[in-house]
């Protein structure tokens, strides 16, 4: 198992009032699996994704990631795991507006310490995989929404992470483009044997899911 999550609780604070987001969620995810966290808005799927991505601090419960107890590892180690083992794709793309498509993909590889030649190879391959090599010099503002999301996919894939976490990756796209993005994610998962976890309530995403983990009000409904 790449993830073992047990009895996860998480709450946000709004005006000094606790708002529970997760109320005892347990989950296991196998290596190479394609899982969709599904549920209506406010069900806790994005929070669960954030916990799996080591983005939010643990409050209660336990997550084992790659055999390590997340609550017990240092901040440096968490940064390292996020840098090397986890690729993120966000609903709003989160590209650097001042960097070209090529530079956006390359940036996190530099942060990973990948040698130059290998880095250049990976960038080319990733952009070719999403069909944007010919647009590599374009900046995000010069690309359409779908193209930006493809750059974001290429960026996550080029890191060669063990897990790709995508939060509503199709929400800002039209159906056709959303479908293309999902196909690319599937292809990349197969190519790199990565685990893919998507938080989404888009029926098109659910259709293609290997497994669906349904949440409502911070609790698992059924899988």
């Amino acid at each position: 198992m790449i993830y073992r999550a047990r009895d996860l609780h998480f709450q946000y604070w709004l005006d000094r009032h606790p708002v529970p987001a997760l109320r005892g969620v347990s989950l296991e995810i196998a290596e190479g699996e394609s899982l969709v966290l599904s549920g209506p808005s406010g069900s806790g799927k994005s929070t669960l994704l954030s916990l799996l991505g080591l983005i939010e601090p643990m409050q209660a419960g336990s997550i084992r990631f790659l055999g390590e107890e997340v609550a017990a590892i240092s901040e440096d180690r968490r940064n390292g795991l996020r840098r090397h083992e986890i690729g993120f794709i966000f609903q709003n793309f989160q590209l650097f507006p001042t960097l070209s498509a090529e530079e956006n993909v390359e940036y996190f590889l530099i942060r990973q310490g990948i040698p130059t030649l290998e880095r250049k190879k990976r960038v080319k391959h990733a952009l070719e995989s999403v069909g944007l090599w010919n647009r590599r010099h374009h900046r995000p503002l010069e690309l359409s929404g779908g193209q930006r999301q493809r750059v974001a996919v290429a960026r996550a894939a080029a890191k060669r992470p063990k897990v790709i976490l995508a939060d509503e990756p199709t929400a800002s796209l039209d159906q056709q483009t959303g479908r293309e993005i999902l196909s690319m994610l599937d292809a990349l998962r197969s190519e790199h044997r990565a685990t893919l976890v998507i938080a989404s309530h888009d029926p098109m995403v659910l259709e293609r899911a290997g497994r669906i983990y349904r949440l409502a009000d911070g609790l698992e409904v059924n899988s």
Partner: protein
Amino acid sequence: MRKLTERLWRAAWVMKLAARNLFRQPRRTFAVLLTVGLGSASLFLFQGFNTGIMNQYRENSIHARYGHGQLHTRGYLETVFEKPWEHWIDNYDEVAGALRAMPEVKQIFPRVEFFALLTNGSINVSGHGTGVDGVEESTFFTTLNVEEGNMLSSEEDGILLGRGLANALKLNPGDRVTVLANTVHGSLNGVDLTVTGIFHTGKKEFDDVAFRIPIAQARKLLDTERVESVAIGLKEDGLWDSFSRRAAAEFSTLTPTSFAVLDKVYYQNSVDWLKSQFGIIRLIILSIVVLGIFNVVATSIFERKMEIGNLRANGDSSMDVLLLLLAEGAVMGVVGALLGIGGAWALNTGLFADGILMPPAPGLTRQFHVRIELDVLTAVLTFGLGSVCCLVATLLAAWRVAKLGIGDALRSI
């Protein structure tokens, strides 16, 4: 080696990203550059202006009155004597020979000072006279402002009068005046002299009493072969310390005193006062610059919370984010400070090339031009201050955002 190369590559990318980020919000970047630039230019010009004033004070003090310093017998300046002339320098020729052999010395000016009564036949006014070597002094004391007639030079019976004294005696160049004084033996003596010129130094209380006569006439008037002091003109302003050490070793009975000590009330106090004032104004300018930059940078950084969240989500630490933002601050600081210093330099060679006309300073009676004196060291210091200000302001603005939780940063709009 490979690790080092990769680290350098990474640092270069951080700088590249930082530099490009400056073009994201051109107006804000311009506002920061303007703040740093104006702050740096203000500091640079103000420091140059102060240096100009201090240099002018120094030049006035050296070339109008004291020379670079003076030699007196040991303890003479600190003590009030009943018969001061008994403590004057009695071996002047020997001292003059030794002084002229010193490498720092360009000119020497023997002097005697005395109180006297001046009369034009109908009006008597007391004055403070100085016996000087007119030929030597006319080539060195160039900032003594002779408004009528000429400097005292080779005239054997000439007298140069301060403006106030000449007015009181109603004298003009060419008029005759009698100077009466006690000799060192106590008897009354007098000499008849011709006014060669009228001067002012800008200090009213000095110009109201001061006059100069040839030292030979002064010695005759006082009936002494001694000189009270020897003013020194050096080859360069910076040679005083070296001269002072050499003179102290050479003359066991004489003490060298620099013009800054002789003119402490006018020169040294002014310099200390201006430096202190400049320190306060510098602090005010720097505070305004820091607050101005903080305001602009903080807004800009707060709008980039999601991007910062993305960086953190992909493994960057708070410190990595802080360094990126500081790199942006550093780029803006460096560019802004360079622009400010360059602009100030251009302004100074153009608009302020002739200096700035200033009203009379405290204790002075005349206006004067102050040149803004800019130099490389001040430019470097100002550049450093401008850049550091920008870094400090960025650090203050970036600290909170860099420390923000990743989830909170990503959720922000």
